[in-house]
């Protein structure tokens, strides 16, 4: 199931996203959590040390390619996860999309 979690700033959506991700993973589900915010905080609510994001390379600009049908990824999700994800407690995979310099703040 692909779930988008949204809400006003301060509503608690990131605490919710991180907690529900871990609980689902603890229950044996495969969970990929994506921080879609340009100021990423999901890492903290997942219980991953934010320093671990510092070594993460930024996503390459050629990751998307235009095709006749629109836009598609030039790599598989598995390949992207191999180079751009962190495994957190309970086995959650955090996919790191944004620059990590502000992780853990705000």
């Amino acid at each position: 199931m692909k779930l988008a979690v949204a809400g006003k700033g301060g509503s608690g959506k990131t605490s919710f996203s991180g907690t529900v991700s871990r609980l689902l993973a603890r229950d044996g589900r495969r969970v990929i959590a994506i921080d879609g915010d340009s100021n990423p905080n999901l890492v903290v609510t997942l219980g991953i040390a934010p320093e671990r994001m510092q070594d993460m390379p930024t996503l390459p600009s050629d990751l998307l390619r235009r095709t006749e049908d629109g836009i598609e990824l030039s790599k598989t999700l598995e390949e992207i996860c191999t180079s751009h994800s962190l495994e957190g407690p309970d086995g959650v995979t955090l996919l790191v999309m944004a620059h990590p310099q502000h992780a853990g703040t705000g």
Partner: protein
Amino acid sequence: MHATVRSVIEVASERHEDFCILDTEASPEHLSRGTAQYADAMLLVVEPYFKSLETGRRMAGLAKDLGLERVALIANKMRGESDLEAVREFAEKHGLEVGGIIPYDDLMPAAERAGSSPLDFAPEGPAVTAIQQIARGLVDGSIAGNGAVKA
């Protein structure tokens, strides 16, 4: 970044038992860029006051414009019967599903101050307990489900 996120969600596993959870940006504008277009469902975390509920309602509208039919409110930081009534009344008026209720819990801001995850900081706390219930509802299809999906 939005186009990449959108494409990643597009190719994520379709299996009901696998989860791909996108924590979106706080602004409603991102929704009009279609970031969440390929999600199966959207959960809107709202607080029990008008501006927050109103943002939720606007986001629900944008989600439906994207073709997302399965939208549910998650009412957070709820402090009692009057909050519950306010959220239910709002949801009913606008035809929105209340998918979950999370009580106000001092342990949540405390976890944030400690730079810790709520689950490690307060695993037995009322908010985490409520989120556990929501996780079960997502798995069994009773929250933001289409009635037919069962794990």
